[in-house]
């Protein structure tokens, strides 16, 4: 990464002209404009009820209060929503990583009849979005008596075709010699996978984990269809259905709840930006 950056700097240094400073200024202004909605959200969530949402909007508050934040816990099952979202995110991330790793190892390292055909069939599932399978799955889940349960949300998410593909490509790039020692010692395939392949794949696995966890944490479409009681809902569904556009309560309280979601995420991202953007961009590089 560092080398990459030096090369890039060297490449463009000769091209820098005075006009570049205005471009930098423009880029910074654009960045601030992009962040403005979040800033507006935060400021209004901290204002006393009477001052929030006033026009012209308040950009620099003269007095702030945490009343709206206190009210979040009174009017919404906020803690429950957070716990539900955390639970589902952990189960989906861990589960999908395990199934993807096992399948990727089989496709990358093991010989068995029909392997390449099975891989193509699995890849074709990338063309089938959830929005297409949701109706038959809804009927299936209803017949299993699993409507309004967390199983309905996490079970279908335990398969990750894209993740399987990505890990397979990564495993193929690991030299086979590294496994030979383990193989000579008579280690089984599970041992080789766990002791050799997984440690060597830490960058790919952690990137995929971030990718899956973010998607699970933010997921709305599926959870909104399958979870109907407030104590089962995830954060995105709960905020929209209970407080936001469809629920009751003051918009200021919704903004306070949103701030509690967005601000920690922004701090986390400001620290770990490179790892997170790499894990999302990875899909673009490998495609």
């Amino acid at each position, binding site marked *: 990464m560092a080398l990459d950056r030096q090369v890039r700097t060297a490449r463009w240094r000769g091209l820098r002209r005075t006009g570049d400073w205005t471009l930098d200024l423009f880029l910074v202004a654009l*960045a601030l404009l992009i962040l403005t*909605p979040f800033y507006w959200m935060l400021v209004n969530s901290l204002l006393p009820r009477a001052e929030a949402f006033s026009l012209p909007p308040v950009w620099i508050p003269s007095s702030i209060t945490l009343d709206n934040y206190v009210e979040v816990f009174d009017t919404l099952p906020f803690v429950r929503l957070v716990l539900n979202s955390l639970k589902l995110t952990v189960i989906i991330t861990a589960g999908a990583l395990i199934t993807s790793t096992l399948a990727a190892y089989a496709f990358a390292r093991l010989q068995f009849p029909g392997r390449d055909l099975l891989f193509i069939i699995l*890849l074709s599932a990338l063309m089938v979005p959830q929005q297409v399978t949701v109706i038959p799955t809804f009927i299936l889940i209803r017949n299993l008596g699993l409507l309004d349960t967390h199983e309905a949300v996490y079970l279908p998410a335990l398969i990750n075709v894209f993740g399987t593909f990505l890990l397979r490509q990564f495993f193929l790039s690991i030299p086979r010699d590294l496994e030979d020692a383990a193989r000579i010692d008579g280690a089984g395939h599970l041992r080789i996978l766990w002791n050799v392949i997984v440690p060597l794949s830490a960058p790919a696995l952690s990137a995929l984990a971030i990718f899956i966890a973010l998607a699970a944490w933010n997921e709305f479409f599926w959870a909104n269809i399958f979870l109907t009681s407030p104590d089962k809902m995830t954060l995105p569904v709960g905020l929209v259905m209970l407080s936001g556009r469809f629920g009751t309560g003051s918009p200021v309280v919704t903004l306070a709840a949103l701030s509690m979601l967005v601000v920690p995420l922004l701090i986390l991202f400001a620290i770990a930006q490179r790892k997170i953007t790499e894990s999302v961009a990875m899909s673009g590089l490998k495609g």
Partner: protein
Amino acid sequence: MTVRSDIETTAPAGEARHGRASTLRRREARAGYLFLTPTAILFLVFIAGPLVGGIVLSLYSWDMFSSPEYIGIRNFERLMDDPQAIAAIRNTFVFTFWSVVLHLVPGLLLALAVNRAMARPLDYFLRTSYFFPMLVSWAAVALIWSYILDPNFGFITYYLKRLGFEDAPVFLIDPDWAMPAVIAVDFWKTIGFTFIILLAGLQGIPTQLYEAASVDGAGTLRRFWNITIPMLSPTLFFATVITFIGAFQIFEPMYIMTRGGPGDRTLTIVMHVYETGFRRFEMGYASALALVVFVVIMIVTLLQVRLSRYWVFHE
């Protein structure tokens, strides 16, 4: 996407080792099937099964309570006459078109602008700011923006009026402005993704190419057309396809901000599937609508595989 096949050449098995080798091979095959079992079961139950089920269901009329009735292709005939379905299909294509154009053109300009020599903290700040909305859930983004565009306290309409646009629209309520507003919010939320992957693509272009071109006297514009664009074509192509597929399934911003209104102006196919299936419980018709999404995405994906051979420059 290339599927690499790495079939091992089996070592010539000597007479004595033959038995042991075949035992090992059998064990390896057993491990292979075992490792694939969780994925295979999930694939059958949650992808292949529902896909086939959806195709079958599209030939039936079923409200989930009475018994299903076979009606052949009547659901598809109905689709052609359903003004809501036609509006939804048109809206989805309009949204997708603008989504692709806006993500690629400004996305590339932004990536080019940031891909210059600049102070590291500045580079870090720009990447962080441009990408951040991508990480926030659609639920949160749509809620924030529905307040920002609110008829009573939305500040964008307010500032437009202050700037002299007296008849500034109330975006989410105005029939002509609801869709542009949703397109703009989607652009704001997801431009970071295109930006980041195009930036990564730009940084993967070998410096020597630019140096050689400069020595040959090629100007900035020539270098852009003859080096940057061809070298970036795999990434550009991927970004186009990913943006298309994502936009074609758009649901959340409309569902949360406009409910498909005003007057179906922002109704999309997936929203129509949702309303038909989970509000009106017309499971057969909803399945037929969902198949439209599937067929379009399948065509685009297969086109991607075909066309990338012609369009995309590979070394």
